[in-house]
């Protein structure tokens, strides 16, 4: 075999292992080997980590027989996403292993966990439309198992909502892919460049991937699901899987290669709305997971805004892409570290120490863009982007961003407050949890500073004015929080939010029940047979009459006459 052949085989093997390892391990869960799988759980993400760091860029391996033409490969964006996701999955699997050590449904959970992991890794490597869609679907549906794991009513409800929205997303995506395939005639993601998008396709893509990131009309699942899922699962939902949506946009609407001003406006508008809306609903939540989910909605709104800006024209796209990635990395690390912190609280079974509080506050406020944190770097990059676009967008950076930052910090204080007041029974694996939190904290704190691509923004963020600009929203948020606490302690803000949840779900159920009632009415005996039965007596009578001699004679004569007449 020639050496290029050998090399490509090696690449194929390496890339296959990324998604293949967790998938195989999931399969092994169904065999007596499940104990071993449980022990080896964290290692499922290792091939992904290794590949992300060692595999060459821009090698595309064709697997023609696989699912209508499979292509996989790693590009620069993919490498970042893979690295990020693998890291978070790695931490989360440690956490999950220790959390579920004595859980009844451990195997169940691990199957879904590993499958979702495989889906997440697979979609990053996919270089074909259908491959992406396939792994996206695998991940989405497997995540349902994570959401519902606890088996409580709340979890079931959250799961239902999640599933409904996932299904809507899937269908929207399917439709969007069809139209894309129709217009490009190719399944390769590279061929998406330069396609002019039908507005409907854009909307469908927005919905399809938007479900994953909690974009505005389809955000409903996030808060209940994050809350209902076991915390390691929530961590990967918020830290890793959420990025699949962003990556989807990047893949299908490659920034810098496509542009759609209308679409851009749609994204910006929806994102901006979500950024504010997330904060507003977040303040009503009284559970830490839910609050973090709302923060995700808000933060993802900002990312959507960045993406929308990138869609406006090619030039902006080229600039927006790195900013977007920067922001994604920042958000994922910070958010996952928050979840691990939440996990620590839950496991300790008591409130955090001051040190821990402080440590937790750092990623929290980093989301709000506190100076010296990764948030500040990301925000600076964002502002830089808005600045270069000029015109009305400049106002965005001056006015809108600080407002959202203030909102975020308000929300984060709320989160800290909720966390302090939450009660928990305590779980095993305290030590592991501490270590994991520490690692994630460190990662969140320093990654962007070390990352070459972020260096310019990092240095910018330290400049004096910027420093101040970043600081005042945090301070403002702090103040606002104090005021808001004062108000909300008097009025009961935590009202009937539970009832409102899953309105969609109840509609669906009502419709189904209504239909089933109607069906029961339909299931009556068919009337046709009974009405036919009524014909029997007259039939019998007429047959009898025809047998009478007189009638016979008459018909005989009639027949004779008729034939005579007709023949003559």
């Amino acid at each position, binding site marked *: 075999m020639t050496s290029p052949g050998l090399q490509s085989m090696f690449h194929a093997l390496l890339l296959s292992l990324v998604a293949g390892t967790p998938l195989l391990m999931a399969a092994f869960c169904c065999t007596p080997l499940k104990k071993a799988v449980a022990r080896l759980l964290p290692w499922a993400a290792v091939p992904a980590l290794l590949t992300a760091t060692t595999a060459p860029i821009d090698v595309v391996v064709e697997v023609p027989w696989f699912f209508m033409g499979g292509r996989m490969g790693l590009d620069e964006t993919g490498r970042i996403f893979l690295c990020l996701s693998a890291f978070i999955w790695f931490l989360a699997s440690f956490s999950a292993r220790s959390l579920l050590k004595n859980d009844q449904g451990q195997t169940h959970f691990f199957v879904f966990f590993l499958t979702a992991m495989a889906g997440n890794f697979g979609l990053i490597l996919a270089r074909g439309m259908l491959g992406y869609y396939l792994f996206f679907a695998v991940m989405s549906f497997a995540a349902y198992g994570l959401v519902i794991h606890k088996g409580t009513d709340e979890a079931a409800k959250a799961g239902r909502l999640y599933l409904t929205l996932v299904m809507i997303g899937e269908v929207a995506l399917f439709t969007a892919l069809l139209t894309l395939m129709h217009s490009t005639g190719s399944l390769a993601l590279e061929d998406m460049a330069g396609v002019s998008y039908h507005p409907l396709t854009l909307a469908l893509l927005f919905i399809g991937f938007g479900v994953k990131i909690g974009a505005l009309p389809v955000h409903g699942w996030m808060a209940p699901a994050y809350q209902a899922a076991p915390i390691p699962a929530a961590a990967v939902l918020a830290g890793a899987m959420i990025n699949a949506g962003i990556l989807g946009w990047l893949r299908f609407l490659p920034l810098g290669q496509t542009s759609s001003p209308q679409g851009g406006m749609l994204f910006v508008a929806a994102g901006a709305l979500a950024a504010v809306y997330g904060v507003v609903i977040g303040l009503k939540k009284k559970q830490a997971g839910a609050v973090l989910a709302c923060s995700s909605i808000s933060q993802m709104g900002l990312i959507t805004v960045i993406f929308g800006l990138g869609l406006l024209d090619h030039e902006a796209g080229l600039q927006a892409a790195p900013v977007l990635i920067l922001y994604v990395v920042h958000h994922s690390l910070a958010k996952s570290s928050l979840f691990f912190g939440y996990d620590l609280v839950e496991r300790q079974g008591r409130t955090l120490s001051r040190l821990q509080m402080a440590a937790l506050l750092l990623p929290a406020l980093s989301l709000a863009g506190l100076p010296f944190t990764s948030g500040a770097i990301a925000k600076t990059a964002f502002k830089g982007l808005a600045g270069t676009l000029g015109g009305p967008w400049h106002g965005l950076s001056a006015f809108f961003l600080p407002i959202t930052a203030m909102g975020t910090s308000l929300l984060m204080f709320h989160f800290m407050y909720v966390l302090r007041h939450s009660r928990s029974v305590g779980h095993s694996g305290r030590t592991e949890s501490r270590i994991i939190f520490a690692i994630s904290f460190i990662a969140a704190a320093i990654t962007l500073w070390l990352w070459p691509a972020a260096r310019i923004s990092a240095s910018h963020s330290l400049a004096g004015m910027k420093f101040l600009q970043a600081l005042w929203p945090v301070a403002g948020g702090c103040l606002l929080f104090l005021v808001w606490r004062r108000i909300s302690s008097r009025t009961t803000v935590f009202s009937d939010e539970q009832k409102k949840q899953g309105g969609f779900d109840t509609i669906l159920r009502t419709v189904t029940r209504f239909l089933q009632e109607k069906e029961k009415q339909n299931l009556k005996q068919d009337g046709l047979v009974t009405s036919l039965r009524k014909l029997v007596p007259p039939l019998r009578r007429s047959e009898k009459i025809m047998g009478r001699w007189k009638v016979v004679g008459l018909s005989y004569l009639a027949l004779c006459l008729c034939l005579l007449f*007709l023949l003559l």
Partner: protein
Amino acid sequence: MIFLHADTPAWMLFPIVLPLIAGLLCFLFSRRTFVIALAAVLANFLVVCLLIYQLLVFGSMRCHMGGWQPPLGISLRTDGPALLMLLMTAVTGLAITLYARGYFSYRIFDPPRAGRHQRQQRFFWPLWMLLLAGLNGLFLSNDIFNIYVTLELIGISAASLAALSGKPASQLASFRYLLISLLGSLTYLLGIVFLYRSCGVLDLDLLQNLSNNGPGVRAALALMSVGLLLKTALFPLHFWLPPAHANALAPVSAILSALVVKGSFYLLFRFWFEIFPSTITTPALNFMGTLGAAAILWGAIQAMRQHRLKLMVAYSTVSQLGYLFIAFPLARVDGSAQLWSIVIFMALAHSCAKSAMFMVAGTVFLHLGHDRIKDLSGVRATLPITVFAYGIAGVSLMGLPPSGAFIAKWMLLSSSLASSQWWWALVVMSGSLLAMIYVFRVMSRFFVIPEGVSFIRPAPFSPLLEWPALALALISLFLGLVAPWPLHILSQGSTALAQSFPGGLP
């Protein structure tokens, strides 16, 4: 017997003479009746095969009895349709003979009424042989008055057979049957008188060549037709058939339904399309078609509502006879060639299927002691072959492919559509659907095996009770697949057919 070469026309005397002799012998020797009858039926079958061979090799033949030439003498002749009808009679007759043996020996096994059954058997064989002779004579006769005699012969023996079971209902029915058949014969005879007055000849060939279509001939045709219609039990003159057929013994029902009604129909058809084609008018054809359509629907609907299996089968005969008449109005486009194949196929398939069905009904009756349709479940456990035969015969009655009836229906449909008379096609289709309903009303009961039905069959259950029915049913089912052969026979000795298939038959 030196004069009996393969090409001697005298062979065609045998189908008449053999059963006649056998009948006499059966009457005389009451011991070995079955053997005698079986020998006669077998010999009859062989002779018919020989006649067919003759037809294929030497063409249509004539035999002048006693050397007297027409117009004075009586002549017999063989041609395609006649031989096919003979073949039908021979095959069905053979099966019925075997079945009757099984039937009677089972009944005689029943000690309390053994004497009565033995008496029935003693009368059955001679009468059946007589009937067979009459039927064969009818098909072979080439003389219109001779046909009258055979008709009377058939009528007498059929009525006596129908009365054989001894039940009051059957005697009443057969009395009525006899009267009707007499009325029919007399009407027919009156027709002959008219015919003779206008033409002066009785030989069919001569009549055909005369092609006289004056009012006398027309009146004669009308009268003869009515007479034959009465015997064929076409709606609305069908009333006598169901009770007579349903109350007779099972082998008798099979004979009556499968063979006897076909005889008179055969004549009717022959008169209309071969002997007096110049006399018939379109309205008359349409009238016959309408009666046929009414018969199909009425018979089927009546069959659907019956509670007894044999009555249902009998009404199904009423319905099936209608198909034969649907062919009439299609003559306008196709000429008699296609028509012959339609009616012959219909008749062949129906006679096999119907006799199989009556045999099944008889076997079931013997087995259960009743034939109420709603209490038939469980029969399949003990009589699987019988039930199977019923199913196949039913399929044939419904005209599903590949049965002979399907071929006939196909030709009916294609003729009616080709001549834009689609309403006949609709009637045919709805007739099949109704047939499906009544066939499967019984079938569904057969299929059910309630809990606790024993699988042990009663001891003296002879295979003769089951296999003839199955054989006939299978013949009627696969008749469609061997359709080229009957068509080939049909085309011999008939010039019209040869013209309609110029490239030779497939």
